[in-house]
């Protein structure tokens, strides 16, 4: 184990706009996620959750403070290097899915791999595996417009977890899913973390946040509290109960 975090936000501020209309979306926020760790972020609307993920994914830049992915400070990268790092290391599930309408489910999922130089046959095979993991193996050749919201959301999740990404960022990835499918997605994220991926998950759903190793409560752009690395389940129910 190295001491490098998969993701570090260190004393980050993000102010949107300027002057009278300036909005202080994040205030001195520090959050670190280790490889293999699943961290959930909860907080009311407007508390800065999406801003936090956008900064972590290099889609937006901090006004002050540092954002590091695998020890690389994003603020020091030029646009091209940043784009490469994002494509290579970061899987991002957007709140509104962001699928490419003219591509099928499998093509959407395979695209980041192909952009990274994987040939189209193996890229498609891996895309099909990822779709299988989210229960969409039968819809691989369907266009987004012919899928339900929940199905599109799962395609977006498959696209984020395909390939060897070290960091998965997910903004409300279970919002359009029923409870059973939501649970399947949480199991998938946990499985990726067990393989060493770091994941940061924004959710309103306490039942899904509870799958995380740690839950951070965000308020007015700052981390109010977190649940720490929780103690073992032994404290709750004895093994003999099983």
């Amino acid at each position, binding site marked *: 184990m190295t001491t490098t975090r998969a993701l570090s936000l260190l004393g980050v501020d993000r102010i*949107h706009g300027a002057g009278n209309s300036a*909005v202080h*979306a994040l205030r001195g926020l520090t959050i670190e996620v280790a490889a293999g760790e699943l961290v959930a972020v909860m907080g*009311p*609307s*407007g*508390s800065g959750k*999406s*801003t936090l993920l*956008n900064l972590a*994914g290099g*889609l*937006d830049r901090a006004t002050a403070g540092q954002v590091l992915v695998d020890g690389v400070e994003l603020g020091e990268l030029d646009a091209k290097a940043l*784009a490469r790092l*994002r*494509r290579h290391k*970061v899987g*991002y599930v*957007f*709140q*509104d899915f*962001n699928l*490419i309408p003219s591509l099928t489910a499998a093509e959407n999922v395979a*695209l*980041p791999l192909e*952009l990274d130089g994987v040939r189209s046959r193996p890229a498609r095979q891996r895309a099909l595996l990822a779709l299988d993991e989210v229960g969409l193996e039968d819809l691989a050749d369907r266009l987004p417009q012919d899928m339900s919201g929940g199905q599109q959301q799962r395609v977006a999740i498959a*696209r984020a977890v395909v390939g060897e990404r070290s960091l998965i960022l997910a*903004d409300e990835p279970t919002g359009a899913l029923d409870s059973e499918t939501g649970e399947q997605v949480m*199991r998938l994220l*946990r499985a990726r973390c067990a393989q060493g991926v770091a994941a940061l998950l924004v959710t309103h759903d*306490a*039942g899904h*946040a*509870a*799958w*995380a190793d740690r*839950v951070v*409560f965000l*308020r*007015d752009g700052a981390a*109010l*509290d*977190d*649940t*720490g690395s*929780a*103690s073992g*389940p032994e*404290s*709750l*129910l*004895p093994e*003999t*109960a*099983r």
Partner: protein
Amino acid sequence: MSIPHGLLALLDQRPMYGYQLRAEFERATGATWPLNIGQVYTTLTRLERDGQVVGQATDEEGRQRYEITAVGRETLRTWFTDPVTLGDRPRDELAIKLALAALSPGLDVQAVVQNQRVATMQRLQELTRLKRDAPTPSAEDLAWTLVLDNLRYMAEAELRWLDHCEGALARVRPPTAPPTSDPDPDAASDLATDPTQESLR
């Protein structure tokens, strides 16, 4: 939890010894309501006195199995078919604590809510960890899995209720921190461009 009804339900499957009843009870409830053997025998004695169970002849080791009677079966049937009413449950300490906290001048009620939120979330995480280690319950584990699910849903409901309390409190007793003025909370996601799409250009 009604211990007499729990024991009757187990004895309705087959006659059992006291120590068996204790083990089966814990298994069915995931040990969320641990019983000691003394409670089991006290309850059996009372049930026998009321004609709900009868003790069988003692075996060579002096142990005695109990079996359910027709009267006991009738009691059990009524218990299963009658819904549990709110009045049957103990009052919830947390609800009372927060209600009183809201009345207490100078108390940081937001902090009371937040401390509870962290504790309840930790409990929900622990319960979820148990669930995640047992993905598909076998028939014999079903009973305790259902108890576990019940505890998870209760914890989720408590967290939702805490959010509600916080909102209600903030309207009546504004916190010291400035509230966010935010008509369009998800505006930030519009900023985000898909890295995949961007790379296509």
